[in-house]
């Protein structure tokens, strides 16, 4: 057993680089999330669609496997809709993951008045937010664009014949669309958390924003006989942006999902960026107010 001296002594050892301090928040944040077994189990579950798509990609290129399963698929199946389908599936799972884990990271700090302890150290408000957001970024990246790009390269490897060069834009679309989705979901989950200090209420509010706001938007659109009420439908706004990035046009007959291009692409971008900016402003403002706690 270690024996520790009961004396005070100054620290004269090495210090970590100043830029890396936010990674402490990420490390502890991830550790805290994975201390919960249900959360860990759900994270593992999030990789199931990836495995499914991976197997399906292989089957598309393997006549032996197709014969074994008794199906017939052409290589052309794997295109933009193939990857978009994968990302949409993972996006919903990622949303649940973010709604589950995101608010808790912030509400704990706010409920326990520990924000002032963080910010009395060499850590700025932006670094604090960056550190907390990076937990969700790492988590959501692991189930979205990272497996998305793995799928892309597996497909490129199986297809051959310069497929990768013809479809390189798809890799960019996968990365950029995930980045937008992650930023929006992360900032939103943290912003609702600072307003509601109770984790469960914050998670519920997060679901409300994603499911009740669209209803509100639809009601506004119906009453005012306009389509702009749909700007409150954040899932559809993200879908419009993704559709644009994946080069899906309204003229395409195979696009049958409702909600596609219900408002112009620029409006969807404006809506998504506005949500991100408002969330960031709210977070910054709330953090500033919480730097100083009164007993």
């Amino acid at each position: 057993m270690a024996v520790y001296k009961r004396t005070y002594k100054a620290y004269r050892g090495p210090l970590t680089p100043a830029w890396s301090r936010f990674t402490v928040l990420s490390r502890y944040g991830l550790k805290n999330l994975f201390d919960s077994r249900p959360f860990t189990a759900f994270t593992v579950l999030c990789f199931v669609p990836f495995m499914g798509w991976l197997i399906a990609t292989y089957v598309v290129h393997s006549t032996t496997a197709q014969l074994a399963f008794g199906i017939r698929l052409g290589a052309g199946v794997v295109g933009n809709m193939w990857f978009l389908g994968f990302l949409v599936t993972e996006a919903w799972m990622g949303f649940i993951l973010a709604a589950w884990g995101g608010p808790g990271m912030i509400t704990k700090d706010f409920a326990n008045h520990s924000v002032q302890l963080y910010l009395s150290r060499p850590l700025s408000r932006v670094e604090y937010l960056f550190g907390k957001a990076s937990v969700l970024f790492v988590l959501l990246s692991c189930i979205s664009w990272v497996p998305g790009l793995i799928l892309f390269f597996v497909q490129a490897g199986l297809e051959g014949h310069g497929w990768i060069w013809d479809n390189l834009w798809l890799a960019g679309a996968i990365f950029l669309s995930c980045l937008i989705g992650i930023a929006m979901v992360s900032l939103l989950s943290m912003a609702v958390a600072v307003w509601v200090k109770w984790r469960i209420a914050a998670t519920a509010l997060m679901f409300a924003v994603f499911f009740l706001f669209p209803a509100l938007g639809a009601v506004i659109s119906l009453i005012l006989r306009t389509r702009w009420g749909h700007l409150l439908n954040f899932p559809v706004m993200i879908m419009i942006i993704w559709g644009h990035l994946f080069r899906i046009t309204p003229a395409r007959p195979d696009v049958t999902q409702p909600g596609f291009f219900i408002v112009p692409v620029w409006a969807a971008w404006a809506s998504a960026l506005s949500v991100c900016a408002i969330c960031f402003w709210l977070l910054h403002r709330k953090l500033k107010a919480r730097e100083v706690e009164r007993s």
Partner: protein
Amino acid sequence: MAAIIEMQNLTVRLGNRIILDRLNGALSGHCIGLLGPNGSGKSTLINTLLGFYEPIGGEARIFGKEVQHHLRELRAMIGFMPESDAFIADMSGVRFVRYMAELSGLPGAEAMERAHEAFFYVGLGEARYRKLGTYSLGMKQLAKLAQAIAHGPRLVLLDEPTNGLDPEARQRMLQLVRDIRDTGEVCVLISSHLLRDVEECCDQVLILKEGRIAALCNLEEERKANLKFLELEVTQGNGFIDSVRALGCECATFGAGRVRVVLPDNIDLRQIYRVAAQHEVQIRRMNYRRDTLEDIFLKAMADHQQPTPAGSKNGGL
């Protein structure tokens, strides 16, 4: 000793209200007490030193570095124990302190070692693996102190460290503060309502009132200054008091031979003995009356209420 904290016309406004009004002074004690009634600006001063509030005028310097321009550097050198409960309830004590030490820049292994040391140092060694939410109020205060010192700061800011503690826990906390002060490696600034706490630990006191400095004094020097204030108990002796007065001393008698004497600078104690011998008066008891911090505090409050003469310096006692 070089100044630890310097203030030059430091003015802080919150909303439309000036909370700190042109503070001037240099704090250089090993342990500095920050006193003042509620709303006098004690916590605002601490928060300004931490860079949470930006002054609208003047500046504050810590270790010679201007706070707003060297915020990150200074925060690494400062340990802060806030007044309110501040911790993460579902984290074990040692993990929480390690976390805070890592945020201050210590590498993981060193932070872990220092967290254990800090917990043993504050006397919570046995409870270090318990969750902070299960700690008593006294233990939480000690855990807050542990997180403030774990990274080895050069300046520790303690905001009401003995708030809500029972007498035993309070003594333990004050003993720790004295221990930290006596190492000479770290300076301590204590903000408190409790004069006795400050008196027991501090060698310098800054008294604030309505956002202005009511007094800034070195406690030891202030006490020494009152060595000229004597309390005597003498046998009745005709003419003794008059002779002492004739020396130029101010005297007041309280019956039963009790006399209070204020010695002017040019009068030596031996002259009192000589006068007593001349009048065949026995001095049964002689005490220096030492000013308590309460005296200093009350005097500062009273002086501050009187209109300040034009051109007088803010901060004079």
